[in-house]
């Protein structure tokens, strides 16, 4: 936190310094010569040496008062004999708060500061040892990560190669199958059209037979005396036929005669060709009307079921066309030969489509892997092995997930609802960009921005998420430790302590 005022310096320099001028930095000691007037370090003014540290600020740069709080811009050097020289703003001199670990900033007697330098130094050594170990182990692990990454990368590359190979195979297979499919389809279609014509004819015949059957029945019904002739006097009993005339509620014999075109009688053949169509819609046939209704209802039900099925079907694109599925489910209407051709064509299509799908999947897979290979996975691919991995952190209310290069998620512990708090955007800025991961475009906040996550990456022996906070509404901050950013121990530090 205090990088700007904390400068590490070796102790040997400090011990060489004559402690005449309070608060002076050892490296500047030579500039303060008690035997000469003092010139402010910015050269702005020369003053008698007695005005050094006289608790009055003469120099604009504050250089005449290194040991008092008189200048607003001064710096006070804590000598900290058992520790390191430390700079504090001179406004903290004699303010009643011990800032230097040797307490040298509080000399007015207002407070008694205990010397904490020895303890601090020990702590610092401990910290440094910890850090050294951490770096040592972390950096070693980082090498592992790099290897892992390389392996991972190699695996991916191998996979791509394999897939490319597979893809070209699939491609030729697919072409073959397509030709087969086309051939089978044309054969099937040809046979089907012939068969369809025959079927059509057959259907027409069946229809006519049906009609003749119904006409017979009607004729029987109307031929009251069963003499195989239908006469106007027989027909006149069907009062409902008045509808074909004036519909006055009375079907007269005259009307009946007129209906039969003045013929005295007609036989079945004439009835079928001349009168069946005219009469059949109007003659009331009692028993038949009731049977049809349940049928209609059943049909309705079936439709509904079908619709529901269609809705529930999850993979709509995989559903075969209706004419393909029909033969499987029901008795074929085609003759065995034609049906065989159709089945063969369906099979050929299925095989082709499978192959096409395989080919698409392979392409997609290749694309996915290439995308991963294109990612910036660290200077030496340290982060490669974190692709497809997620790290979790649990607090009071939520489980947070960090999936590098993918997304960040907040999961409620109570209702397990997942909220996206960011999608991978980029590394941070500047030199140490790998110390920061950015995720944005998460779920929008009510009355606010879209959620985003900033991940601060630090060196750690293991890769793990160590804390999550929301310093601003909908702006999350995660702390992530990983060996991937551990730097090596450069040179032995502060051995002199």
């Amino acid at each position, binding site marked *: *936190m*205090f990088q*700007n005022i904390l400068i590490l310096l070796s102790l040997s320099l400090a011990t060489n310094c004559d402690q005449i001028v309070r608060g002076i930095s050892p490296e500047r000691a030579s500039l303060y010569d008690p035997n000469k007037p003092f010139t402010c370090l910015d050269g702005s003014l020369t003053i008698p040496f007695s005005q050094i540290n*006289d*608790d*009055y600020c003469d120099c604009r740069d504050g250089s005449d008062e290194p040991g008092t*709080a*008189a200048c*607003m811009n001064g710096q006070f050097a804590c000598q900290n004999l058992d520790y390191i020289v430390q700079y504090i*703003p001179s*406004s*903290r001199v*004699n*303010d*009643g*708060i011990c800032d230097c670990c040797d307490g040298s900033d509080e000399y*007015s007697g*207002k407070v008694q500061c205990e010397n904490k330098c020895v303890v601090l130094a020990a702590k610092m050594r401990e910290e440094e040892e910890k850090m050294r170990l951490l770096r040592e182990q972390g950096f070693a692990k980082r090498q592992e990560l790099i290897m892992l990454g390389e392996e991972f990368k190699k695996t991916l590359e191998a996979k791509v190669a394999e897939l490319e190979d597979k893809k070209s195979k699939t491609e030729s297979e697919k072409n073959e199958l397509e030709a087969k499919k086309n051939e089978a389809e044309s054969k099937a279609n040809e046979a089907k059209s012939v068969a369809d014509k025959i079927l059509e004819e057959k259907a027409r015949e069946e229809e006519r037979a049906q009609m003749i059957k119904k006409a017979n029945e009607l004729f029987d019904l109307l031929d009251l005396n069963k003499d195989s002739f239908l006469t106007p006097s027989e027909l006149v009993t069907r009062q409902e036929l008045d509808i074909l005339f004036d519909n006055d509620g009375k079907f007269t014999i005259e009307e009946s005669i007129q209906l039969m075109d003045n013929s005295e009688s007609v036989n079945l053949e004439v009835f079928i060709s001349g009168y069946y169509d005219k009469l059949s819609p109007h003659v009331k046939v009692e028993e038949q009307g009731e049977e049809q209704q349940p049928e209609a209802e059943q049909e309705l039900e079936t439709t509904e079921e079908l619709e529901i099925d269609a809705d529930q079907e999850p993979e709509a694109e995989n559903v075969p066309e209706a004419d393909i599925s029909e033969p499987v489910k029901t008795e074929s209407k085609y003759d065995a030969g034609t049906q065989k051709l159709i089945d063969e064509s369906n099979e050929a299509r299925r095989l082709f489509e499978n192959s096409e799908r395989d080919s698409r999947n392979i392409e997609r897979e290749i694309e996915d892997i290439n995308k991963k290979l294109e990612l910036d996975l660290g200077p030496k691919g340290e982060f490669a092995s974190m692709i497809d991995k997620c790290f979790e952190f649990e607090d*009071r209310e939520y489980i947070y997930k960090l999936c590098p290069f993918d997304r960040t998620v907040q999961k409620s512990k109570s209702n397990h609802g997942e909220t996206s708090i960011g999608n991978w955007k980029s590394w941070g800025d500047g030199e140490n960009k790998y110390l920061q991961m950015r995720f944005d475009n998460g779920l929008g906040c009510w*009355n*606010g921005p879209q959620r985003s996550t900033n991940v601060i990456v630090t060196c750690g022996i293991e890769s793990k998420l160590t804390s999550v*906070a*929301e*310093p*601003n*509404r909908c*702006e999350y901050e995660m702390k992530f430790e990983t060996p991937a950013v551990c730097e090596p121990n450069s040179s032995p530090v502060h051995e002199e302590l």
Partner: protein
Amino acid sequence: MRLLHGTLLVLACLTISIESVDRNNFKSCAQSGFCKRQRDHNPGEPTYKADFATLKIDNGHLSCQVENVKNSVLFQLDLFLLKDNRLRFRFNELNPLKKRYEVEGVIVDTLEEEKFVVVRKDSELVELKNGLNNKVALYANPLKAEFYIGDYLVASFNSKNLLKFEHLRTKPAPPEPPQENAEAQAEQPVQNESQDSEEPDMWEETYKTHTDSKPNGPQSVGMDISFHDFEHVYGIPQHADKFALRSTAGADPYRLYNLDVFEYEINNGMALYGSIPYILAHNKKFTVGLLWLNAAETWIDVRSNKADKSIFSKVADFITKSNEIPQIDTHWFSESGLIDIYLMLGPKSTDVFRQYGELTGNTPLPPLFSIAYHQCRWNYNDEDDVKNVNAGFEEHQIPMDVIWLDIEHTNDKRYFTWDSIKFPTPDQMMEHLSSFGRKLVTIVDPHIKSDSNYHVYSEAKEKGYFVKDKNGNDLDGWCWPGSSAWPDFLNDEVKNWWSTKFLLENYKGTTLDTYTWNDMNEPSMFNGPEITFPKDAVHLNGFEHRDVHNLYGQNLVKATFLGHMARSNGQRRPFILTRSTFAGSQRYGAVWTGDNTAEWEHLQISIPMCLTFSVTGMSFCGSDVGGFFKNPDSELMIRWYQAAAYQPFFRSHAHIDTKRREPWLFGEEAINLIRDAIHSRYSLIYYWYTLFYFNEKTGKPPMLPIWVEFPEENEFYDVDDQHMVGSAIMVKPITTKGASSVDVKFPGNNEIWYDVKSLRTFQGGSSTTFTDITLATVPVFHRGGSIIPYKFRLRRSTTQMADDPFTLIVCLDKQGLASGHLYFDDGLTFNYNSSKEFVLREFNFSNNKLISKNLEMSSLFKTYAWLERVIIYGIKTEPKKVTLEESGSKSTQLQFSFDSKSNVLLIRKPGVNINTDWSILLD
């Protein structure tokens, strides 16, 4: 025509949709029964007649009966002539059906009467004079009172016959077609035969989904009050409006009804969080003040014969060259209670400040830290957050005295408790802050979570301390914790109970370095009418909430104040911030302007809002730096800090949905400028402290409109973008985006002003346009003739500044004279009052000699603070030598340097203890 209509409608809709406040949540006058009745009241024939046969005069007290001649209802009028040129006018029913509510706990004065002389007395007119020759004339028929300073008529009551006092009456029987007539009158009690026509709103009133049962029926009171020969009136906060009150012609009256207004709008008279029914009128000769002491919903119409005319018929006025005397007519009406008016007759503004202060109390000297810089946010999330914010101020070397915790620090909005996960070790957190000399403020709101496991709730429930609904059950409403109840702070027993909650043993995790913020005390109730209590809720002694609404917030703060007194055993001065106010709230602490918005207009309005609070006693005022709602950019942030550094209460605050905005989050340039702004406050902190000391002693607020210092310069009467801090410093904050120039008007013919930074001088009576504006520009000027104590050393907080040396800046006027004061003490305790432990010095410069004089010979305070340097502005020639003379005839030659270009003399290190007698002679 139709088309036009349509267009207008669309425009109207558009206007509404861009406004931030939801006006539908708050009543207009037309939606308030009594406001409509009173505002539309057209007396026709005079209605009220005094009966001088009943006149009694006893010492300074005159009383007589008054009759409403239209319905024969009788009233009692009491007129008190009070010491120090003040009067009280009290008007009530002679025999009300039940006791009408009379405001208690606001007036702290003993109201000692002053004898007067009866100049004239007959059946139509009584004239009285006080010792200062100020006159009161009371006319019998129609009733009218006139008030004179010397021979000048300054104010009159009921000169427009708008007095309308709705007497208490029994509810008329449900509609009976044949109206009762004259015969019925003989049998029924007088109260029943009102000539006031019954209106639908009188016995029940519905607003939105809320129905006010109005069990006492109509009981509003109203009267006109005119200020003669005045064109400017000020006061009646709280409104987000100009300092000089506008004419309300064509608009709603100013409304006083304490309300929690979400995203309030500026430049109108809508009610806000506070109500101080106190108005001041000022002209070249006089300043007078008038308190309408009524705690019910109140509306005030303001009309100006000049201003209203200038709007409508400037041309006509020009032609007729009317020399009509200017006059401000105000019309006051309250929903219940009685008419009780205190008139301060000045005649000068400083007299009015004193007179009002005697009446309602002055702002007590705040602890030193509380006038320094405060860092707040809704919310600092947890203990680490608090530590990190503290560390941020350390790292960036920005002084800061107080960190604040908003509602989220509690265990689910149970005040006096902590969220045990986010704040598991508040003691340690307190200790950490205290080790930097810093304080903590926690929020304590009046809504008590309805939870029988919460001790504050269960105790209050058991003791029957909660406000009741109209049916006598504890009033249940919705606020931050969900279902809540509210203690009845009108009740002194409740106040005492509440105060014990602040004892250190009861409020765990806090120390004497923990102080309190009372918010939501209008009171805010989310599901109530206009977001507050129903008016038919019931308080102590059966008084309706209607009678006491505007007092609720003040009584909470009073109870909290008692709590803080008890907490330190009466040793430490409390610091409390309140959102809701009433006349007298200044006795308990500071106020802020509420939930403002991060917009330039809100920065601008903070100045008139605080000026208004200042002149109405509530002098410890500030606004949320940066604006509460929305996100300020760095420019607005910087300008807000620069302006707020010169306002009494200096706190940054932000809504929970806004981005973090601690001073170091706006880039390097902003950090430096914000540090400079805060440092400007700290370097002047002892000047501010001295002003607050005099505020306690004299009632004169630290933040002042220019006219208080320059009462005869009428071009400053409506200036509210430029103001004084004490009488020595004038500020014109830059409050516009991308400002490239700023105009400054310099008051005081024959005065000199010194630019604090450039040392340029400006003549009073001139104005200057500054064009060299940068983000660093803050136009601040020292007034010639003043001596200002500074402490320039930049410390972490005021705690570390105690022993730091002073720099005196001596700004000579045209006669080569200057003077000033310095007050300080331990900054924390009551020892300044109980054992005279303070320093009070007067500095005078004349005849080339600067003298420090002790104004408190029996001062017992020991200080290490010394005199570091003296800077004299406006000195014509370089002295040959500068000599320090101390008591005991010791004299020392001092080093000095002189800048002949800017006529500034710098005297190096006199080094004397600031609390000794010394002089510095220039030869």
